């Protein structure tokens, strides 16, 4: 079991990245790099939900927190690679392009797409996260700067 997880780590990472990309961003990056190859649907994009779970006391027994909307689809390239996507929200076009990139990442185009699509996505998300973290850091209380009046 451990091995299959490790073997799938890169795929797990890019699928997560594609799911978290802002609306339309993957399409813009992919279409700027290549013209989309032909594919057939294994499962056309469909909208549904997943039940988000959490743990009592953060670490204890799981409970159902509430659902979130998701869109999923699956497709096959003419060369046989299968791409899947499960992404947050109701975004059929984004689900399609995410599945397409997932399939293409299993082909000889992997390195090219890593550079043209995944790396810019990753950088974009990191910038957004860092900007938020920096604003949070600016609201951190500095108790240590108080003088103690011991002198």
């Amino acid at each position: 079991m451990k091995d299959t997880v490790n073997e799938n780590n890169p795929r797990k990472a890019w699928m997560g990245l594609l799911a978290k990309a802002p609306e339309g961003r993957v399409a813009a990056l992919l279409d700027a790099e290549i013209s989309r190859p032909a594919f057939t649907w294994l499962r056309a994009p469909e909208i549904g939900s997943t039940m988000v779970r959490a743990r009592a006391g953060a670490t204890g027994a799981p409970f159902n927190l509430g659902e979130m909307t998701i869109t999923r689809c699956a497709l096959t390239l003419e060369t046989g690679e299968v791409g899947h996507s499960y992404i947050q929200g109701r975004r059929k076009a984004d689900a399609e392009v995410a599945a397409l990139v997932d399939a293409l990442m299993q082909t000889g185009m992997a390195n090219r797409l890593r550079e043209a699509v995944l790396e810019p996505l990753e950088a974009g998300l990191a910038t957004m996260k860092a900007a938020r973290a920096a604003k949070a850091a600016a609201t951190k209380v500095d108790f240590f700067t108080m003088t103690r009046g011991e002198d």
Partner: protein
Amino acid sequence: MYVAVKGGERAIENAHAWLAEERRGNTDVAELSIAQIREQLSLAVNRVMAEGSLYDPDLAALAIKQARGDLIEAIFLIRAYRTTLPRFGASEPVDTGIMACDRRISATFKDLPGGQVLGPTFDYTHRLLDFKLAADGEVPKAPSRDAETGTVPHVTAFLNREGLIEEAPHDDTPPPDLTREPLEMPADRALRLQALTRADEGFTLGLAYSTQRGYGRNHAFVGELRIGSVPVEMDIPELGFAVEIGEVTLTECETVNQFTGSKTELPQFTRGYGLVFGQTERKAISMALVDRALRWEELGEDNVGAPAQDAEFVLYHADNIQATGFLEHIKLPHYVDFQSELELVRKLRREAGAQQVQEAAE
């Protein structure tokens, strides 16, 4: 006798047309967009997501617009939409320990790893109306500062290390789901937490407040309150492994409560837990207090008869959609029901009247 009645179609159609017009309001004023509601009324959006029990900010914003700002009506719309969605599965339990925190405070420790991060809070505002907002104004950019990398540890983890607080041991029991099975008593903690996280904010707040005022007091401190985003991972059956499908913003409140102990067990703090979709801290704190009050039995406390200790009372009245559904249905036609009551009262009065006449005659 059942009497079928028809009518009112035109009145209903016209009422809907007028509703649409009133919803729009004065057309000289620009129309609200969904994006404006999502971005600028985000705490209303958060509440609708939490109590609608569906995380989708655009849908919640649409519901608020459609409901003319009536949040319970908006929650109703979200609940109704939710039932139309096929469920693709359940996520792995989210790990709030890796939350990217916008806010993280503790009322129990001043200096703690990760620090006191205030975030975008109302707490220290003066609650004076800001008339600058009535005019179009540019907002100054929020300052930033280099952030520490890495995750922020939970406060309870420090106390756990000393054994001063009860543990929340890892467990993988599949949780019951009140959206699939009717809520029945006795409700275990997983079911109670699901009911509380989608419960009406006002009802939960009122109950939590009642515990503070003495109705089932449990001396809560906010050990930690954190708001931020966590990744959601879901097992993909076709692939046989879990992937991140997105991120949700959550508010988590862990309370540190009065201790229990006995001759055999050393005194130890107990815990209450609140976790709610969105930036919803009043609700999360309330949830933690009510969760703690409902745990009286498993912690070996006395039932003092406080409303917040009564799981049946709390859980069966906390859902605002159930409550409003039953409450508001009494304004719909009850002509036949009422007719029978009317007949009964008339009959009783006739009988009583006849008796009086008879007594007077005697």
